């Protein structure tokens, strides 16, 4: 799922002419409603298919994950982090994330008793 956080390049911050050229010019939203409005435009422009969750204006979830300006995580079925991407923009590598996601899936279906990576968690069968 996508989590929409603080604008990285608002017009009242580190403004980017490359954004202005395509009409993506927004000041930093100060209310949740304002942020929801910008997030909706983003969702439509990029034709997003994954759920887009909007973070509080104080970026409570964003700060908990140090996710700004952009970042990728993979979390396994036991709720633990198996992949933590480098910070974006340079660390934002979807291909790298996908490989870790594949290995997370492979790890789940393998024999858990032989795998130290499970840390002794009880095995869970697929629903």
């Amino acid at each position, binding site marked *: 799922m996508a989590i929409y956080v603080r604008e990285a390049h608002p017009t009242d*911050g580190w403004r980017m002419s490359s954004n202005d050229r395509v009409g993506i010019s927004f000041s930093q939203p100060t209310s949740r409603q304002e942020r929801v409005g910008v997030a909706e435009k983003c969702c439509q422009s990029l034709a997003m298919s994954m759920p887009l969750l909007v973070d509080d204006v104080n970026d409570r979830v964003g700060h908990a994950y*140090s996710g700004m300006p952009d970042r990728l995580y993979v979390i396994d079925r036991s709720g633990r982090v198996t992949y933590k991407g480098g910070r974006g923009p340079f660390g934002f590598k979807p291909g790298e994330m996908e490989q870790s996601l594949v290995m997370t899936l*492979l790890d789940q279906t393998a024999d858990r008793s032989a795998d130290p990576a499970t840390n002794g968690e009880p095995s869970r069968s697929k629903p």
Partner: protein
Amino acid sequence: MSRRFIPAILMMGFLIGTLSPALRAADPAPLKRVKPTEEPAPSDSAVPQLLESHGVPPKIPASPISKLRTWWQNSMARLKQVESVQMVTAVLDGSQMGPGDGWFHPGQSRYGWDWLVRRYDADADGVITADEFAGPAELFETLDRDRNGELKPDDFDWSDRAPFLAQQSQAGQWFSWIDNSSNGRITPDEWQQFFEKLAGEKAYVSRDDLRLGLFPPPPKRTVPPRAAENGPSPMVFLKGLLNGELGSLREGPGIGQPAPDFELETQDGKRTMRLSAFRGNKPVVLVFGSFT
């Protein structure tokens, strides 16, 4: 409150915030429990006296100062690894925040090539073929980055020196030239516009047209560049760092740590999703970002 005080107060808060975990990590016992002086036990005095009589200086008992020094050194070492500290250092050194600067570190994973080899390289030849791979074919294809039918260490090299990354970077640059609407999709119209740009007045694109279109000459500079063209000032970076636009003063969970739970609403207000609802079901990918 004057706006000038806000950065100073935030910096103090940030320093206290980053030092406290370092304090806790380096010395789990609260300082108030340390005895003010440490007397050697009576039974220990015989040995030092014996050593001293042979010209060997007795062992100096650990004083509070040496313990304090050790704690301080551990804290400073720990502090150097705190991402936000690295970022402030880089910005104040005049960094323009390129790859590898400050807190731009590589990604981390519980898994990698070594893990795959332990699992699937049956003949231990350093290569995992499709036959050796016991999982579904589509998962193999995702791992096989260069699509050559076998898994090798370079399929997992995401550092900037990997040829794949250079290809991706060049292709990404061309993509941004063609994707006029900047929405991540090149439409037939946008492709046509690029064609017309390469062809110019003609109705076709020649070899030279393509070469010049993909590798344009650098623009001539007739006037010295203004200061604004050299990139944002350190103050812009620091402000962005402190208000969370360019990063966070917090680190986020590490590999193997529990992912903080949360519950948020979608942008259309139609759904509320909680991360922990996926426990025991399937893994979750979190994508953090914004429009700008």
